[in-house]
């Protein structure tokens, strides 16, 4: 483990929400800075890690980090699904949150330098992948082909519209978008992400794939990637579970013999297949 990445393990650090942006229906991004300057300075993450976010008086929840480890404002993108996230959605700029972390293993970065990367995301599955995408684009020369395949139910449900616009204009970054049903004004593909994945001319050798999305989409995409010849150990995904501690003690996030909070949340598909539990 990187010695510089000492996580905040038990007492949350207080942070201030500085900006809130609407992303899609029920999903907002919350930009934050730590109140203590020394923490603001020292807080370092790896792509794919997560934090435990305290919404005061509501509780604490595990949430993936969408920002790059370098030069990217700290934020969380959260869908309102339960009690605590509903509490977060009520907050305004200036309100405080608590942060523990960062926790978890994260996506490989150094290990995959020189390789081609295929990102496949469905819906809000783009949130945990965003950190890695931005980080890789910041070091674009270190990688081979970089491809994003992203799909959502409708154009309204596509996350990070601003980033996406930037990405589309980025040279050497192949982006492919699809929505489930055609819409007036939509010039991209129509259909599911797995169908689009099947159609594309994707690299196979020296290639890794990062896949994230709802289980149905996930399984269908994996099938296509495997048909193309990408090996199970080169397909990565990030899993989510009910979590309470983030440090491997409460055991709520156990899958098979692993704990998502310390052994994950990033797993290769080969690992996922042998966990012995549904994902």
């Amino acid at each position: 483990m990187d010695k510089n990445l000492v996580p905040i393990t038990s007492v949350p650090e207080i942070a201030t929400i500085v900006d809130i942006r609407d992303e899609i229906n029920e999903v907002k991004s919350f930009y934050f800075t730590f109140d203590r300057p020394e923490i603001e300075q020292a807080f370092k993450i790896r792509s794919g890690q997560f934090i435990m976010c305290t919404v005061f008086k509501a509780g604490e929840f595990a949430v993936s980090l969408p920002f790059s480890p370098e030069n990217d404002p700290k934020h969380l993108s959260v869908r309102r699904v339960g009690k605590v996230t509903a509490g977060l959605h009520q907050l305004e700029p200036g309100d405080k949150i608590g942060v523990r972390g960062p926790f978890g293993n994260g996506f490989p970065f150094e290990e995959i330098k020189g390789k081609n990367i295929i990102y496949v995301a469905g819906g809000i599955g783009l949130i945990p992948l965003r950190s890695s995408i931005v980080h890789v684009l910041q070091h674009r020369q270190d990688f081979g082909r970089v491809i994003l395949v992203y799909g959502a139910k409708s154009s309204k449900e596509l996350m990070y519209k601003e980033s996406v616009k930037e990405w589309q204009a980025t040279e050497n970054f192949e982006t492919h978008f699809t929505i489930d049903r055609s819409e007036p004004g939509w010039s991209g593909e129509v259909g599911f992400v797995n169908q689009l994945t099947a159609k594309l001319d994707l690299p196979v050798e020296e290639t890794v794939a990062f896949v994230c999305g709802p289980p149905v989409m996930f399984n269908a995409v994996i099938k296509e990637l495997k048909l193309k010849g990408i090996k199970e150990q080169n397909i990565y995904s990030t899993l989510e579970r009910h979590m309470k501690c983030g440090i491997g003690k409460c055991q709520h996030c156990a899958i098979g013999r692993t704990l998502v909070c310390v052994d994950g949340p990033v797993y290769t598909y080969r690992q996922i297949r042998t966990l012995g539990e549904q994902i």
Partner: protein
Amino acid sequence: MYWLTSEQLELLIKKLGEEYKIFGPRHDRVSGEVIFDHLTDLSELDLQAAIPYNPPRFILFPHLEEILKYRYEPETKQARIEQLNLLEPKALIGLRSCDLTGLLCLDRFFLGQEFVDEFYLAHRKKLFIISNTCLRPFPQCFCVCTDSGPAAKEGFDLDLTLAGRGYLVEAGSKKGQALIDEFKLPEAGPEASVLKKKIIDDSVSSFDRWALENKAWISRATNRLTTGFIKPEVWEYIGNQCFECGACSFVCPTCSCFNIEEANQESGETNRLRTWDSCSFEGYTKMAGDNNPRKPVEDRRNKRFFCKLSYSQSKKYLRPGCVGCGRCARVCPGDIGLPNVVTYIRREITGEAGE
């Protein structure tokens, strides 16, 4: 090894009481059970009492514990988090070897993994442990199958073995030795080791046949569990007997799962509470939005036995997670305490019919 009289033991505990909060087995008048409890009255301590119905883990890992306190004022946007001081010296007197082994499992789990659990550490930091050899097994016991008794091997400050009218005492730490020196206890000769060995051998040989027979079967069950070669029907059979009451988890010396909840007070303060949890509860893995990756009860049940016996979990404890205290078998309203689960797995292996 040293000799210690009952009178000296009493003085020694009194002496510990000056520095430590004393815990030990006592008879509860209301329930008629032996409980391991905080002793406000040292005369209540009964070292010959049966194995307590509760393991001592609540002392280091309470049922319900406030781990943080905070006040948040939305109007002024002020948040103040207060960390609590949980450090309190405690002495555990008369710990049975199974319970001591359980405590060592918790130590390795809470303190020895990638992260240290700071709340457990605070409780653990100043602890004095006096273990007590079991002269005979109790009806529920099978520690001979799990290498955790009837006498303690490690982890104690002092270890007692009743031999006739006095105790044979061994020190397991500098703290323990210092106390022996302070009380100027007489050294027991080489015959004492022979005597202690005989006492332990006698205890081992008086275990029930079922416990002794299970010895080999626990390791075979471990093998099957680890490799996943147990048929789904066996888990279904076990799951069908689970009432999802969580009692097995709550009396287990090594169960460590917990939940964390916020409790808002009228005063405006919020307490962050950590409570025991059990993998048998349906809500254990339920995520926001009601998505639950584990649903059927047998799916949750086999996780508990996987946790107690599999090799991967044993790596965390440096031994199996079961210490053979038999409490789960005693409290289970179904019939799926750990020894029975081993029996069901045995039947699957041998093809023998159930009774």
